[in-house]
């Protein structure tokens, strides 16, 4: 059985009925299969209905779904090959923010992204996708490498935020993030960003400045996690649901504000129900947009990027 979210209980009930019916011996096979078909139709309809109208808080839950595809899943599903490159050359190799040189359908690029991990062991190893300064510095190093050898950059964002640790502060968490922001504004190669899961705060933005920014349909992107925003504004982290509503952190709202360029429609019931299809959707978008961005000269690209950046929140 898949993990069902709170608001998917009615779907879970229907799917359980199907399983029960399939193992039932009370009815004839024909009867069972026609009933199952009907129920399956109902599941599709119900899932469509629920998912066409998710609240921001429900999106948060889908974006954090334990089975949602992560960076390494996408690497496996969309790359012809991927050579991971390690380390920031100063302190260490962050495991929450990964990167390397990849080929996607014959197009070479530098691919970076946050990895949260899925099992408990993996989550700890990847620090729940919360990067320390060396992660941002590694990403910065790889992006400079991309510029040097004229490779486009593809960045997949999925983090609750930068790691809140004593050692992160000692090694300059703020500077590491800030440095990437200024670097990414001036790199002379195309930068393609997709928010695949959680786009949490400065930790997300540190690899999310680019020429084309897309979001998976049920991904979220906000100035702080709903819990952090609730504790800052309401002084009560249990008001996270209200904070998610107030920040309008879901993709369609963000698209309306023109802060992203594109929303990628997810498979029925979210990317976690069909990771292969989700990967295909992401891959098509990457290829289409890389093709478009590679037609710009580097001067045009930079001018276009500056214009975009100075237009964000212009009044």
């Amino acid at each position: 059985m898949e993990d069902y979210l709170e608001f998917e209980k009615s779907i879970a009930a229907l799917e359980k009925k199907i399983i029960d019916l399939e193992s039932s011996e009370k009815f004839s096979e024909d009867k069972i299969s026609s009933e199952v078909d009907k129920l399956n139709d109902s599941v599709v309809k119900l899932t469509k209905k629920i998912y066409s109208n998710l609240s921001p808080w429900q999106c948060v839950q889908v974006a954090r779904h334990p089975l949602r595809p992560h960076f390494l899943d996408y690497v496996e599903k969309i790359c012809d090959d991927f050579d991971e490159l390690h380390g920031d050359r100063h302190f260490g190799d962050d495991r929450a923010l990964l990167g390397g040189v990849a080929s996607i359908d014959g197009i070479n690029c530098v691919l970076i992204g946050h990895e949260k991990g899925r099992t408990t062991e993996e989550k700890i190893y990847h620090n729940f996708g919360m990067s320390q300064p060396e992660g941002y510095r590694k990403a910065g190093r790889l992006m400079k490498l991309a510029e040097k050898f004229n490779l486009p950059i593809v960045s997949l964002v999925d983090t609750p935020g930068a790691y809140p640790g004593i050692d992160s502060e000692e090694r300059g968490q703020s500077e590491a993030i800030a440095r990437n922001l200024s670097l990414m504004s001036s790199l002379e190669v195309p930068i393609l960003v997709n928010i695949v899961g959680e786009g949490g705060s400065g930790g997300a933005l540190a690899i999310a400045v680019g020429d084309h920014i897309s979001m998976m349909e049920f991904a979220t992107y906000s100035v702080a996690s709903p819990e952090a925003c609730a504790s800052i504004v309401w002084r009560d982290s249990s008001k996270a649901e209200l904070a998610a509503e107030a920040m309008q952190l879901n993709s369609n709202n963000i698209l309306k504000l023109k802060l992203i360029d594109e929303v990628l429609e997810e498979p029925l019931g979210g990317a976690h129900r069909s990771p292969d299809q989700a990967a295909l959707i992401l891959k098509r978008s990457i290829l289409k947009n890389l093709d478009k961005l590679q037609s710009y000269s580097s001067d045009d690209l930079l001018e276009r990027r500056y214009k975009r950046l100075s237009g964000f929140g212009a009044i």
Partner: protein
Amino acid sequence: MTNWFEKILPSFLKKDQKKKSSIPLGLWKNCNSCNSILYVPELEANSFVCTKCDHHIRIGARTRLEMFLDPENKEEISSNKSGYDWLKFKDTKRYKTRLSEAETTSGEKEAIVVIKGSLLKLPVVAAAFEFRFMGGSMGSMVGQKFVEAVEYSLKNRLPFICFSTSGGARMQESLVSLYQMARTSAFIEKMSKAKLPYISVMIDPIYGGVAASIAMLGDINIAEPKALVGFTGPRVIEQTLNVSLPEGFQKSEFLLEHGAIDMIIHRKELRPTIHRLLTKFEYS
């Protein structure tokens, strides 16, 4: 947000202040560090640094810039508008209400003030964050005013000095606020490409989105003594990790020791120090 920063404001700043007035009501005040009773005119003459314990008392953006720049030829530049309510944001109060309350409390339209003027006769552009305006938080209008300041510097080939003090990106504009980090950093990079000096002066306190953009990207990073500067606030780190923090954590002295800043400069020495550095740089 108003309440928490009112609590940490020195008491003499809590009273309604008229714009541009740097003399607070009442002639005496307590230092909020050593508790000594200080004579306000004397305190003002000492750049609002406690004459007994050297504590750097928090001051408003306008007072700060008046103290820093030469008295003559000052002119305020950049938009004179308040933040924009992109999300119709409402928590316990509406964002619009918070904005107008902040304007009343601080006497400013937004959390940053930009003035062109001169520093010991050297033409400069200077900006200062106003902490009393929603904790100096950065929303779209703060980003815009910062960008306009940089554009003015670029156009006139002037150095730009920014005094940051801020709780971070402003929650009420969510992603629009987050994007201001990228927007301002892009313009700092533009200054850098144009080989114009950008000096960041860190004033107690700076956290989150402003630390991770404007504050840390100076060609020279300067901090006032004992200023708290970091990405994540100490309370959050303590609660998340369930540890107690080392003595002096995230203070200027800690930043200097860990290589994040170039120097710690006493408030009274900021003018000659920054002037001395700028006159050595070739940029015009």
